[in-house]
């Protein structure tokens, strides 16, 4: 027997985790990333001659709950054909028995990395945010709540397109009751008792988690839960950090439940009051105080970009003047230039 130090041991574990693609249409290319329950590999789809991303379950899976979740995720993705939602191509079981699904391989970076490296202008970041909202609004229109929206689950493609990823915690709701997404073809659907209900379980990422989600109040989750997370993403895009941080997940959850997010303008006075108000409205503690849908939030941010009044902010007369001046800057400048020229001409004529 040989000595295997910890780094070799970890490498061998990774090697043993590699997907067995024997007899499939895929050829292994490399590893793309890792999440809580799965690894994502870049593989070559030999039938179509293109690279795709293969998500394979690797986490310990007591009772097969994660496997069920992966099936559900694949079915949910199949429902959501939208330019800002990563498209799924295939789902199945590998020769080693593990469930996988294949999706578009996105050349880009995660939203947090994009923000740090690209340092986009505020309008550029807001336009991207609207795309994210539109994807989520589309999902809501199809009865799907994401429940784990965060910058790490949004990819920004090479052409500036936003793609919402990782629908593993998504829930399908319909007409006031939760629906179960059917399971994989081998299972022929999950018997009701085997579908992970997630009842009372805190799932999601604390910094972007709504108060009702942090309480584990699963029954009350609806589209406004995602609106809250979108508000937290907007906060992140404007401020560079999430509304709530802490030394531990428990500390963050405690703040989400009890504290108000720090005001954006307290840290950066260049952030317009209107944007701060939109963010605050999206991050309201009570769901009924938030925007009713991601579409409303997108429209509100769009109105801000267009220099129109927004619902979340009551303008003073001075705000109205400032906004109109800002919105019609070119016209105002032309009028001022014209008036200045007339003054100059009048003065010249007087001499």
């Amino acid at each position: 027997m040989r000595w295997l130090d910890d780094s070799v041991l970890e490498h061998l574990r990774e090697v043993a985790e590699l997907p067995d693609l024997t007899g499939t249409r895929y050829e292994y290319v490399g590893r793309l990333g890792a999440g809580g329950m799965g690894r994502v590999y870049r593989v070559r789809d030999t039938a179509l001659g293109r690279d795709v991303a293969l998500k394979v379950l690797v986490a310990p899976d007591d009772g097969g709950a994660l496997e069920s979740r992966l099936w559900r995720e694949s079915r949910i993705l199949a429902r959501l054909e939208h330019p800002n939602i990563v498209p799924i191509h295939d789902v199945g079981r590998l020769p080693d028995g593990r469930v996988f699904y294949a999706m578009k391989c996105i050349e880009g970076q995660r939203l947090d990395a994009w923000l740090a490296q690209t340092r986009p202008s505020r309008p550029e970041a807001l336009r991207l945010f609207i795309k994210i909202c539109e994807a989520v609004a589309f999902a809501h229109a199809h009865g799907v709540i994401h429940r784990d929206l965060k910058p790490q689950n949004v990819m920004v493609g090479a052409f500036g397109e936003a793609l919402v990823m990782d629908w593993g915690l998504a829930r399908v709701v319909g007409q006031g009751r939760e629906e179960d997404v059917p399971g994989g073809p081998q299972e022929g659907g999950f018997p009701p008792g085997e579908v992970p209900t997630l009842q009372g379980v805190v799932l999601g990422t604390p910094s972007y988690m709504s108060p009702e989600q942090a309480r584990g109040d699963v029954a009350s989750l609806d589209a406004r839960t995602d609106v809250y997370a979108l508000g937290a993403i907007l906060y992140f895009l404007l401020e560079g950090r999430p509304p709530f941080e802490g030394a531990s997940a428990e500390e963050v959850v405690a703040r989400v439940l009890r504290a108000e997010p720090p005001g954006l303008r307290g840290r950066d006075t260049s952030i317009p009051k209107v944007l701060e108000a939109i963010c605050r409205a999206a991050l309201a503690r009570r769901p009924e105080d938030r925007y009713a849908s991601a579409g409303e939030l997108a429209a509100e941010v769009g109105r801000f970009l267009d220099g129109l009044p927004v619902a979340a902010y009551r303008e003073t007369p001075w705000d109205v003047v400032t906004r109109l001046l800002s919105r019609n800057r070119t016209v105002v400048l032309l009028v001022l230039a014209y008036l200045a020229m007339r003054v100059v001409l009048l003065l010249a004529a007087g001499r």
Partner: protein
Amino acid sequence: MSEDAAERHRSWQVLVAAYWKPIYKHLRLRWRKPREDAKDLTQGFFAQAMDKGFFEAYHPSKARFRTFLRTCLDGFVANQVQSEGRLKRGGGVPLLSLDFELAEGELARLEPVAPESIERCFEQEWTRSLFALALDALRDECEARGRSLAFTVFERYDVLGDPDARPTYARLAAEYGIAVTDVTNHLFQTRRRFRAVVLDKLRELTATDEEFREEARLLLGGARP
């Protein structure tokens, strides 16, 4: 355990091979036993386990086997301490041939283990034993099938290489006088066999299908062999 004596003996050997190092290291780290005492206790534990059928009381639904074994071991050592260190090795059970110096050398390479990490350390040592056994079995298998070169390439790249400075495929190809695509194929096929051999070893070490699946999931993640 099997009713068949030969099969029972083989199972016992597999169990000893996988667990003796974690047990010895646990005695040295958790119980802070001197070398000689740890050697005696390791031998004594296996002797009594066989003599008194410790492991027959194990039930997969109640705990993982490693947890059960460690509990038995801690109980055994506590009894030894209470009985003023008189080791009872079980009547007529032969001493096992175990390379304690090798284990001692491995201990010297371990980082100091915090008390709260003892359990994790036992798990890690068990995984180390299992993977080492699997590598030995894989090497034997490759040699028997005339695939020694495939194993050598795998060993050079995945086992012996510095994790931060692995040789490139091109370098391995040049070293062994093969094409780069051969290196890729050797690595792919041998890695796949490695996974299968690890799972085979795991199957030998588990009592039921359920336990095996559970262990495979914990060890390799999500596996449903």
